[in-house]
């Protein structure tokens, strides 16, 4: 075996022309040769190119990254199609589409001389071809094999990418075992295969319709899409922001105010209308439908169900709801953990479900929708629900709450987000260590979102994730502190009030507290905290902002309120990465920069006092 992965540069490869030529021949010969080749001969052949670092070096890096992007898209398509097939649409377009995707990957890999990828996709292609011609019915175990082949190719793609970026490469395992499995699956005639071609048939039901239709629509629309470098997009958004500011400065230019020209007025308002449209469009370009993320979860539910011996059906709604790309990426982890939680703790085994008078197949529902300027992601199952008593018991055992505390259902349910908290009696490889939900909470907090839990014992649990539409824009209060303007994100502001001198209390002569609606809250003098203010300033001259962050509540003392504005968050760059209390910068209406406060770190220790 030639596994020279430690130093890709040590590996000299032939000139580009030769490589492509060789690749081409392999494609042509591959068809006949590979399907009939003996296992022994093949493993020798496979050994020749189990080295993702080898071929890329003489390849055009652009060509290679295009290949990676395209191959990954095809793998995603394959997975989605296979799951549809398993859900019952055994024939026609679905199968063709999966077949075509493998075929494309094979072709691309052949061109770039990735022999293993080519061989694996070729074998799977032959298998799917049999199914396409009706000579083979795809059973769940066959689908398993094909899915594994997809996973295997994904591993290869990752290695290739790693080699390309000069990261250490882990050699993918040999494809022999997989190829053998694929070939075995292909040789099984329909007769040998046990009767039920789809044992998960029960999963097929009405509500699936929306997902199927939207995915096929997605495929039809693919041809009209183009790929754009995110840096270019970011630049466009920056420029549009500047355009809006320039437009508004022109509009409010005092010299133009004296001009009484209806035509000028008309032109200016036309300009601002167009600018507004351009801005909206530029922002919309960052948005992607959440469907692609949802569909990835279908695979997860399937695998988890098969592993745990449960029957489950994932229903998807609102796949075309659009979210900022970065949010969709950040959402993947929490969704996986929540689904694991639902599958493992929520759904019962088929027997238990029958005993409880429910259908054997558990239903898990994933739904995205718009609500009051936020995106709401709803994950619900019809399992056994959260047990208030069990959670409370565990929490008391662990000393998280006192036994006689009066807690609302919601307070109790939120205990499951505590790190290390688990009511599972057994740790399985799916869940039980109390890590998952903690991860969910952290991610959601980072996305500036909130989680709500609704649960009825015996009939299921619903998690509601409320997220902002985008991370790039926030609504902010512009406040003045020591002559500078700062932006307080509005989602963490609860109220604003003018303090009276007698509402301030001093604790042991140090910390200041203020009484707000019968609650004592710590006071953070923003000016002093940031080292810019005038110490000892009279409280009644300023304004108090009641802020919330990570379940802490506190009061920020600022000088003045200067307005409310929607701002685009800009990174301050490495120069200021050690500055605490500042989350970024934003361009204000007059073109100047305002700094966005990071309330969590501004509050710091002060907030901990009032922590529940």
């Amino acid at each position, binding site marked *: 075996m030639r596994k020279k992965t430690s130093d890709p540069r040590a590996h000299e490869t032939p000139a580009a022309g030769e490589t492509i030529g060789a690749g081409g021949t392999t494609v042509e010969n591959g068809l006949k040769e590979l399907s009939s080749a003996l296992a022994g001969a093949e493993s020798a052949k496979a050994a020749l190119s189990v080295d993702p670092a080898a071929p890329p070096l003489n390849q055009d890096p652009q060509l290679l990254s295009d290949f990676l992007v395209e191959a990954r898209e095809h793998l995603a398509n394959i997975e989605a199609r296979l799951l549809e097939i398993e859900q019952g649409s055994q024939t026609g377009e679905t199968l063709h589409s999966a077949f075509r995707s493998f075929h494309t990957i094979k072709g691309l890999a052949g061109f770039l001389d990735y022999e293993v990828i080519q061989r694996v996709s070729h074998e799977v292609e032959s298998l799917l071809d049999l199914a396409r011609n009706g000579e083979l019915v795809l059973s769940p175990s066959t689908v398993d094999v094909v899915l594994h082949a997809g996973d295997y190719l994904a591993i290869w793609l990752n290695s290739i990418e790693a080699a390309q970026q000069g990261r250490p490469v882990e050699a993918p395992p040999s494809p022999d075992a997989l190829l053998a499995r694929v070939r075995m699956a292909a040789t099984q005639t329909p007769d040998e295969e046990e009767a039920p071609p789809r044992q998960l048939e029960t999963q097929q039901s009405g509500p699936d319709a929306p997902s199927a239709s939207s995915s096929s629509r997605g495929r039809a629309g693919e041809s009209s899409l183009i790929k754009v470098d995110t840096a270019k997009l970011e630049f466009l958004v*920056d*420029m549009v*922001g*500047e355009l809006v500011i320039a437009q508004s400065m022109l509009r409010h230019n005092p010299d133009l105010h004296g001009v009484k020209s209806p035509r000028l007025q008309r032109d200016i308002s036309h300009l601002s209308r167009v600018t507004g449209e351009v801005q909206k469009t530029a922002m919309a370009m960052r948005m992607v439908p959440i469907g692609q993320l949802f569909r990835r979860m279908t695979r997860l539910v399937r695998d988890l169900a098969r592993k745990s011996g449960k029957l489950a059906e994932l229903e998807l709604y609102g796949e075309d709801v659009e979210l900022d790309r970065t949010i969709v990426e950040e959402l993947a982890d929490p969704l996986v953990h929540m689904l694991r939680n639902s599958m493992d703790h929520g759904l019962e085994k088929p027997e238990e479900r029958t005993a409880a008078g429910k259908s054997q197949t558990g239903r898990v529902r994933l739904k995205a929708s718009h609500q009051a300027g936020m995106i709401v992601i709803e994950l619900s199952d019809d399992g056994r629900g959260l047990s208030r008593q069990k959670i409370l018991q565990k929490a008391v055992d662990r000393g998280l709450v006192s036994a006689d505390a009066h807690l609302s259902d919601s307070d109790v349910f939120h205990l499951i987000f505590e790190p290390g908290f688990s009511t599972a009696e057994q740790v399985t490889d799916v869940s039980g260590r109390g890590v998952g939900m903690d991860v969910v909470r952290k991610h959601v907090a980072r996305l500036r979102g909130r989680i709500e839990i609704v649960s009825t014992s015996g009939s299921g649990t619903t998690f509601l994730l409320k997220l902002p539409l985008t991370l790039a824009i926030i609504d902010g209060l512009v406040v003045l502190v020591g002559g*500078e*303007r700062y932006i307080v994100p509005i989602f963490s502001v609860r109220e604003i009030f003018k303090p009276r001198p007698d509402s301030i209390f001093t604790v042991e002569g140090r910390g200041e507290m203020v009484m707000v609606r019968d609650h004592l809250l710590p006071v953070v003098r923003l000016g002093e*905290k*940031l*080292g*810019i203010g005038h110490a000892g300033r009279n409280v009644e001259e300023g304004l108090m902002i009641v802020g919330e962050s990570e379940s802490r509540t506190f009061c920020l003392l600022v000088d003045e309120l200067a307005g409310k504005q929607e701002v685009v968050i*800009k*990174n*301050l*760059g*490495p*120069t*200021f990465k*050690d*500055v*605490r*209390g*500042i989350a*970024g*910068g934003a*361009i204000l209406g007059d*073109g*100047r*920069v*305002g*700094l966005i406060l990071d309330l969590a*770190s501004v*509050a*710091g*220790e002060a*907030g*901990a006092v009032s*922590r529940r």
Partner: protein
Amino acid sequence: MQTTAVRAENGARSRHGKYLVFHLGKEEFGVHVLKVREIMGLQEITAVPQTPGFVKGVINLRGKVIPVIDLRRKFTLEEAEYTSRTCIIVLQVLLSGGAPAGLQMGVIVDGVSEVLTIQDSEIEDAPAFGDEVALPYILGMAKAKGRVKILLDIDQVLSRQELHGLEKLPEWTAEPALA
């Protein structure tokens, strides 16, 4: 293109080329034109808390937020009133360990005068002042038009370590006590 040119310049340590000449007080300085992105008039600068005095703050450069350094303060020269000649030179700076493309930074100077082509023969190494080591951010001294110009290696002037003199205020040093 920008970065390759700069790299070549650093590698060969060839110092001849075009320099933008600016002044701080009576002293004249030069910075390689390939480093200069633009020159703009002074504009309002937003101060960033917890930064050393020479970091004036940030400005909006066509939608990008970039830091601005007061070069007088950086070189511990006497402070002077800003005049109509005062301007901001936006530079492309490569920081050690930073992004390979570098980042943009503005420096405030008293005024810019001209772009000069300076030959190698006109450049001398920086003299060692007493027993101090030669300052790492001085490329050399150029004698042109009868005056001495201090040629700056701007990457060194604005190097990471220097900026990270941005000491944190005492109350920020302790991590907030997270339960």
